[in-house]
């Protein structure tokens, strides 16, 4: 298994190198937006993965509540933590990208608003795990939050969208892109694969840490039992 991980890690490194070359050297410069448009190749994959993370948390939470098998809780937690990371990156890169293009750091359009609110929901998930009593109960409560968050996501988007059409702002948010030239599209696809693969690797690592933590607790309980006897 170790060699598989190392191979995967090496593959990720290669993917990163290739996509960096494509992003900065191969893809053509956008005629309207200039060089800064290349930020798209960072921001879009990160955002998509952040949304996937939410779905993964929901899946892990549902299966954990249904079966009670701990590994699904480890999976949900790892997805939540990595999801918060990706969501945070998506928000920050989106803001930095927006500034030169639309001249504002933030705009309350439906996508950004939904991303922000969902980010807070999953930060709440992590906080709950930190503050809840350790063990199965904390895991169960967090699973409920994960499920509620996923169910709420489309409602939040719908509400933010409705709100936005009632109060249209001057600036159109991201997503108001034109179509991409074929080289740009290919660069985006490669970047997407790179981010997805790297994310999956990091997710697996976080999962392993979670599993090791659980092993540790179990083992230290055994040791304490032998001392007591």
């Amino acid at each position, binding site marked *: 298994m170790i060699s598989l991980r190392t191979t995967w890690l090496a593959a990720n490194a290669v993917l990163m190198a290739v996509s960096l070359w494509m992003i900065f050297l191969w893809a053509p410069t956008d005629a309207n937006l200039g*060089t800064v448009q290349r930020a798209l190749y960072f921001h879009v994959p990160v955002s998509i993965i952040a949304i996937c993370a939410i779905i993964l948390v929901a899946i892990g939470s549902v299966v954990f509540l249904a079966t009670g098998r701990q590994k699904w809780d480890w999976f949900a937690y790892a997805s939540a933590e990595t999801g918060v990371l990706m969501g945070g990156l998506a928000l920050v890169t989106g803001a930095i990208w927006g500034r030169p293009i639309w001249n504002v750091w933030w705009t309350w359009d439906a996508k950004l608003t939904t991303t922000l609110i969902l980010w807070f929901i999953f930060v709440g998930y992590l906080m709950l795990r930190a503050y809840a009593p350790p063990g199965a109960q904390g895991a169960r409560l967090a699973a409920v939050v994960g499920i509620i968050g996923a169910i709420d996501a489309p409602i939040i988007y719908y509400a933010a969208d409705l709100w936005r059409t009632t109060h249209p702002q001057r600036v159109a948010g991201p997503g108001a892109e034109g179509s991409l030239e074929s080289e740009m599209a290919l660069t985006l696809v490669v970047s997407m694969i790179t981010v997805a693969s790297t994310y999956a690797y990091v997710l697996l*690592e*976080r999962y392993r840490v979670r599993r*090791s933590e659980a092993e540790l607790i179990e083992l230290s309980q055994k040791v304490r039992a*032998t001392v007591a006897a």
Partner: protein
Amino acid sequence: MNTNLGYLFAIYIITWAGFFAYVFLVSRRQRELERELNQLKAMLEERRKSTPGDGR
């Protein structure tokens, strides 16, 4: 032409820094955990050796 390269650089560096910082933290935690786990396993083995059979 104003290329706003500063912003692009910021995005690039933040994305990579964020990723790698997280990976680094996770790996470090994993190493600590493995060390503790091995220590505990060794402790358990010693206990098991030093108390042969069920003493009561």
